[in-house]
């Protein structure tokens, strides 16, 4: 085990451009093991891009980024560190991105077998435990298209957890779900947070954010405008932009 006081993510003066668009501006961010960080902000503010930099799905142009002591360099010039980071960082996507040609169990066992080199027996056993944990043990042999959205997202969560990640990234995990299915996914995430998983969550579920977050980060046009514990950020936001954003989203 690493020294737990050492940050698992260290981001300093990170800048990211899409062509001429400056999407992330001088981002400084540290995440401590066990911490649950919720990222909020308007659509297009750079939330997805920010967390996708952490597992190298987006490359950045300047700044420093270290994940679990592996340094990711600008322009994606660090493929070995990248590979290590991706085996240690799990991600859940808005659109689930399950593999439609594989059964639920095969979705979950693929990476442990191919990346970690586990035997099929071990991988299946672990997968079944995870499915039980997210409450869908009976769906193991089905194909993703035969599951509800909420079930699919829980499979996606189990699939990411199967790699035994040290950090989990969530990019609007409930935004594509019908309202009645949001609860079951949030419950699974809540459990995970309780168990001490380090999580970075992009979400518009403010109630959930207030409940599980250790820290909320508000991002506006690619800049971290304000951050703090949920009570502080939600109840007494300091910046006008945070206030107007919260006024807009909390109305609904």
């Amino acid at each position: 085990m690493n020294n737990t006081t050492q940050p698992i993510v260290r981001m300093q003066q990170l800048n990211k451009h899409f062509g001429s668009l400056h999407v992330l501006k001088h981002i400084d961010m540290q995440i401590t093991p066990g911490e649950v960080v919720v990222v909020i902000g308007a659509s297009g503010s750079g939330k997805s891009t920010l967390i996708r930099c952490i597992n190298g799905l987006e490359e950045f142009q300047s700044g420093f980024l270290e994940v679990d002591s592996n340094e990711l360099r600008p322009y994606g010039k660090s493929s070995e560190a990248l590979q290590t980071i991706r085996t240690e960082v799990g991600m859940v996507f808005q659109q689930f991105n399950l593999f439609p040609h594989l059964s639920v169990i095969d979705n979950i066992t693929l990476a442990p077998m191919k990346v970690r080199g586990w035997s099929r027996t071990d991988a299946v056993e672990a997968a079944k435990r995870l499915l039980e944990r997210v409450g869908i043990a009976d769906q193991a042999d089905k194909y993703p298209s035969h599951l509800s959205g909420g079930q699919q997202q829980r499979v996606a969560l189990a699939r990411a957890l199967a790699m035994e990640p040290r950090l989990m990234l969530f990019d609007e995990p409930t935004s594509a779900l019908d309202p009645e299915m949001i609860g079951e996914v949030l419950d699974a995430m809540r459990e995970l947070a309780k168990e001490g998983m380090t999580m970075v969550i992009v979400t518009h579920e403010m109630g959930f954010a207030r409940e599980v977050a250790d820290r909320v980060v508000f991002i506006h046009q690619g800049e971290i405008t304000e951050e703090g514990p949920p009570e502080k950020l939600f109840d007494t936001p300091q910046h006008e932009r945070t206030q107007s954003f919260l006024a807009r989203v909390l109305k609904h």
Partner: protein
Amino acid sequence: MEVNFQFDWLAAFESIPHLLPGIPWTLLISFGGLAIGFFIGIFFGLLRISPLRWLRWPAIFYVEVFRGTPILVQVLFIFYGLPQILGGPINALVAGIAAIAVNSGAYISEIVRGSVQSIERGQGEASLSLGLSRTQAFRYVIWPQAFRRMIPPLGNQAIISIKDTSLFSVIGVGELVRQGQIYIATTFTALEVYFMVALMYLAITWTLSIVLRQLELRGLAGQ
């Protein structure tokens, strides 16, 4: 003008045993050519989507050349032209298979490219986020899905290539049309014989269509 003809059913029926020997040749040329064309197609189709420009370029060139010239010219070039370079004759069967291979290969590489590119971005991203390498992501996630989507257009290409082999009567390979021509030369029953030749092509292509439909119904092809 008075139309005065009689369709001689007996002549049509009698031509069958003389045409049947053409079927194995037609099948051999088309499926032999398609099998090679499939590998050519995978090769150039994947080059075509490579991130490296100098790999893409030969693939684009290949497709443009063989899609942009008639297959009849291609087979004539191979059968009559190449021997001048090689210094020896080329077997007509080999020339026919080669023509189908290079021609279908060009179309199949476009099929391969299109199918691979049609797989949602999120599939590759999910794979990478799980720690799979790019190669593993391609092999276990992208390719199996792309392959299913390839089956319907590949079937379509197979039907086109089967019909294309009819042109190879010009190089004297004994496929269906050639057998018909030889038979007609002695019986002068062009109407009946070409009618039967057409039926035989239909029998082949229809069978193929049915097989493909079954694959799609069983969910092994398409989405």
